[in-house]
């Protein structure tokens, strides 16, 4: 082997043996270090994965959603409003929508009841039937062919037969959905004909969405127009905010670790100082001693970082971030079973590496350099 490489290998051998002389201290440091990296990496991987999943799925959402407003509160759209939007230039299709929320005491959960659009015959639900999301099926222990009973806030009773359970792969967007036929929906919520929850607009040219929304707001000034870009921004902000909040809370843990690492590395024990003194006395150069301590620090921080990141990957993508579920669920009882698509953001991991490895290495360098530069006789005494 090349002499320079062999020299580095010998330094590495010595560093490993030196670490092995204090196994409890060094193993404990690796475990704590890896735990901090695990928590931070889990938050980053989970946040990035769910943001990506949500934005990919919702990219197919409606270009514009029009909602009637009164006193800053949602109002129902009327048929006349729908007709006014139909006449807009640039709008390819106007889809009035019927959907609403229902608190189901039997499942102790909120459902979103919806009527599939009339323009998609494949999604149409027959009268007396229902298509449910996997979360609803879990909450009410439903299977295809079983009955689903719902009670409205005014006491109206609806009996349906489940004809389909939406695939688990769509759970992120459909977990709480109950799709019904239109007359069942109107009878259940006591809605007359000619009123709708809101209106979805399909715009022919995506570049004209903003213009169409502006023209629509002139035609219907009492309406609110939410574009697909607004929805994407909301989802992005939602998850970025949560991820930022979680990281801010974990910054306390990171700071505590930096203090621990600094305390461990900066105050060399008498034994460590004596070791450095002996090495200098037998002919080691200051640069060799610093290189040795850098190898020691690099081994501890490098392995801890790798262990933390690998464990975080398994936690987020194999175990669906189970540790965060209680925090993310809040009071939701219909939390979807997430199977996030794994991916690595190299920039985020590199940032995490810099935030965790560099402070530790920096904490080692100064005291080692100071001790290694001192007269060996004075150090050993």
């Amino acid at each position, binding site marked *: 082997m090349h002499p320079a490489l062999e020299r580095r290998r010998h330094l590495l051998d010595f560093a490993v043996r030196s670490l092995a002389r204090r196994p409890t201290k060094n193993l404990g440091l690796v475990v704590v270090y890896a735990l901090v990296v695990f928590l931070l990496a889990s938050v980053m991987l989970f946040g990035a994965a769910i943001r990506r999943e949500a934005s990919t799925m919702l990219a197919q959402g409606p270009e514009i959603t029009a909602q009637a407003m009164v006193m800053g509160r949602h109002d129902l759209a009327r048929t006349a409003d729908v007709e006014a939007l139909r006449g807009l230039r640039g709008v390819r299709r106007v889809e009035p929508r019927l959907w609403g929320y229902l608190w189901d005491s039997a499942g102790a959960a909120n459902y979103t009841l919806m009527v599939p659009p009339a323009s998609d015959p494949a999604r149409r639900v027959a009268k007396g039937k229902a298509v449910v999301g996997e979360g609803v099926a879990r909450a009410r222990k439903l299977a295809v062919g079983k009955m689903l009973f719902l009670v409205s806030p005014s006491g109206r009773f609806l009996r349906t037969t489940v004809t389909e359970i939406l695939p688990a792969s769509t759970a992120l967007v459909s977990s709480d959905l109950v799709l019904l036929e239109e007359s069942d929906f109107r009878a259940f919520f006591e809605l007359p004909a000619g009123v709708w929850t809101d209106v979805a607009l399909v715009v022919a040219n995506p570049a004209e969405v903003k213009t169409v929304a502006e023209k629509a707001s002139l035609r219907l000034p009492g309406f609110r127009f939410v574009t697909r870009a607004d929805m994407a921004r909301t*989802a992005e902000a939602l998850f970025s905010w949560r991820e930022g909040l979680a990281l801010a809370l974990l910054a306390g843990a990171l700071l505590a670790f930096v203090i621990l690492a600094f305390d461990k590395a900066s105050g060399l024990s008498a034994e460590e100082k004596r070791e450095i003194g002996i090495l200098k006395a037998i002919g080691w150069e200051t640069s060799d001693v610093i290189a040795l301590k850098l190898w020691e620090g690099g081994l501890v921080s490098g392995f801890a970082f790798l262990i933390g990141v690998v464990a975080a990957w398994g936690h987020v993508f194999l175990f669906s971030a189970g540790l965060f579920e209680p925090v993310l669920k809040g009071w*939701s009882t219909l939390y979807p079973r997430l199977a996030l698509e794994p991916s690595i953001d190299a920039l985020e991991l590199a940032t995490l590496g810099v935030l965790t490895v560099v402070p530790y290495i920096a904490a080692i360098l100064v005291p080692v350099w100071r001790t290694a530069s001192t007269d060996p006789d004075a150090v050993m005494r």
Partner: protein
Amino acid sequence: MTDRPLPRSLAGPRGSTLAAATLAALLVVGAAMVAATGTDRHAAADGAAARDLVAALALSDVALFTEGRYTRNPSLADLHSAFQDGPGSLEHFPSGSLVLAPRDLPGGRLEAREE
């Protein structure tokens, strides 16, 4: 008689060998996990199913936080939803505390100004 050092073969593996073996083991475990969670044709089909559903039903938000209407559909929530119990009511849903209120709501605006 002075003790002679053990031959290298009996002294155990070198530190550098141990470090390299540990690193290799970690990389193998990591690669195995990545392979176990890697994307395949089924995952691509699953993603397409979700996108088709979103397009067909014109869905606007993810169904993660079903506690309240402004946590279930934050992009479509109105100004009243966060204060539905009264103008000065405090946030009472855990998820609602973690939802950043949109600053720009057409038909209404949230503004903070110093007097």
